[in-house]
């Protein structure tokens, strides 16, 4: 199977210049599982995976860019998909190396994987979850443990949308209400649970950003729920 994959990857890469790093080579899927931890805050893959802050990555290879039903992509990615971009090794490799260089308006707020081997590894890992002529190994789902331990009570809080709207005004000094993201990530349309988890991760200083630690640090549990409800509905 490895041979087939390499062959397929080489075939789509005819027009792409490859350096001595052999960037058309899938790497080691087990290593890739480790690299994928960087992606797990937003992306899930495997049985039962669903779209979170980022789209799920099952059947990623061959999927038209920006085309997953119900996911709110940037206009640029949708346009690239409409123009015929279907994800393959070469395009994913380029996207992962520098997301904003590949799709300047992407909402994937990720600095990129500069190491070609890391990219080859993670793509090998993800390749396992796409249909292919060969068999697909039954790897375990990557449903990640939450970044922070949150009680069921916190997760069950129903946000007060009107209060969330007022509180959101403080967020909108930096984050854009229309979901635009230029240097500061978009926070609209997230699944509420992801929003709640992220804010608590800042509040408990597990996530590193000092502005967000400060902003989240003064929000009570019901205020976080209110914001999650409001922004989730935008």
């Amino acid at each position: 199977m490895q041979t087939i994959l390499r062959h397929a990857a080489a075939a789509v890469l005819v027009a792409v210049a490859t350096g001595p790093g052999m960037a058309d080579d899938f790497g080691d899927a087990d290593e890739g599982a480790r690299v994928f931890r960087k992606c797990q805050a937003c992306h899930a893959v495997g049985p039962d995976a669903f779209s979170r802050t980022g789209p799920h990555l099952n059947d990623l290879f061959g999927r038209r860019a920006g085309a997953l039903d119900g996911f709110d992509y940037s206009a640029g990615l949708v346009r690239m998909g409409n123009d015929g971009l279907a994800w393959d090794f070469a395009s994913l490799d380029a996207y992962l190396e520098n997301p904003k260089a590949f799709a300047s308006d992407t909402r994937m707020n990720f600095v990129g994987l500069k190491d070609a081997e890391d990219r080859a590894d993670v793509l090998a890992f993800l390749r396992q979850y796409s249909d292919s002529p060969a068999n697909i190994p039954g790897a375990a789902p990557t449903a990640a443990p939450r970044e922070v331990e949150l009680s069921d009570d916190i997760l069950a809080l129903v946000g007060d949308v009107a209060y969330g709207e007022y509180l959101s005004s403080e967020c909108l000094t930096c984050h854009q209400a229309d979901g635009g993201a230029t240097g500061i990530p978009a926070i609209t349309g997230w699944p509420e649970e992801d929003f709640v988890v992220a804010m608590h991760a800042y509040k408990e200083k597990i996530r590193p950003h000092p502005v967000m630690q400060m902003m989240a640090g003064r929000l009570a549990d019901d205020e976080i729920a209110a914001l999650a409800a409001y922004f989730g509905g935008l």
Partner: protein
Amino acid sequence: MTLNRRQFIRSGAGLAATTLAAPHVYAAGHGGAPRVVVIGGGAGGATAARYINKDAGGAIEVTLVEPSRTYYTCFFSNLYIGGFRTMDSLAHSYGTLAAEGINVVHDYAVDVDRGARTVTLASGATLPYDKLILSPGIDFVDGSVPGWDVTMQNRMPHAYKAGSQTELLKAQIEAMPEGGTFAMVAPPNPYRCPPGPYERISMVAHLLTQTNPTAKILLVDPKEKYSKQGLFEEGWQKHYSGMIERIGPDFGGANVSVDPMAMTVDIDGSVENVDVCNVIPAQKAGVICERAGLTEGNWAPVDGRTMVSRMDADVHILGDASEQGDMPKSGFSANSQAKVAAMAVRAALTDSRMFPAKFSNTCWSLIAPEDGVKVGAAYEATEEKIASTDSFVSQTGEDAALRKATYEESLGWYDGISADIFG
């Protein structure tokens, strides 16, 4: 202009004829929808106008009085001097506000009659209000730098209200003779944008290293300490070693006069010839606050819980002009305060809910290309003042990747706050 005037006049005529819709929740004296007048279309005023108007569905009539048709943000104007932004990229119009239903009047507010609750415009028209928002920014204190007044601003620009002054200052720097001297007279506290003068020094230094590397920068400063001082000093040493000399109060930095015709700066009796002189005078609340009788000393005191004036329950004062406690005078602060005031005004005039005030501020500064730093704090209001509850500041010795990320974040912030203020 014609359109705006006409809209304004038509609106006034409609009110006089009482042809407007039935009264709303607030029992406005004139029988129509309650009226809010906002003076000043910057980070405080334009934000307040939008947030009061938002979702009100015509329940509140909002009029914004702002003389400029094109607003140039003070924030990021230093980056124009450094060559990192165009002037166009700092320009914003009021088209979105007008389209959202805000009555945008391009005129000067010259007086407020608080008894009659009216604002008088330079054109002579008067605007009645139920609630007034004052967000006029700063004006300069006469005589704070002996020898300088606004009639001299073309010889010695302040460039502390962005636009033509900023362009003038940059043009003067670019025209400096080789090896010439750029001087800045920095302001005493409190003033707009605490790191602003020092970011400007950084940007002037960057420009000069490109165009005139033997030039000198003389910073005359009446203050012992200033915002992000350790970060700026580290950056100046690293990027512009030997170019910048700061003269603090220990060496006469607080005893300065200028002669704009002779292009000299007198520092505690020692006269320096300079080629460009950026005088940033001491500051006070925009003069309309004084005319409205709402100032105490140089600033307009407010109760931070709603940003309401300490002297008039129907007037809220935002941003640089207000004296509220611990928040720095910044566009970010004004934007933050505007949302609290808007919430309070809407709650007073309609049946919308009242929530506790929350404020925050972050100031990013650029020291050199991709070398960005930031300082920020969160605030809560007590009866006495707005008080800082938490804060952070960039550290000296941070690596280049973090500084670059901080700079890129500041670009994102500019887009975010601009969209929030102007749509």
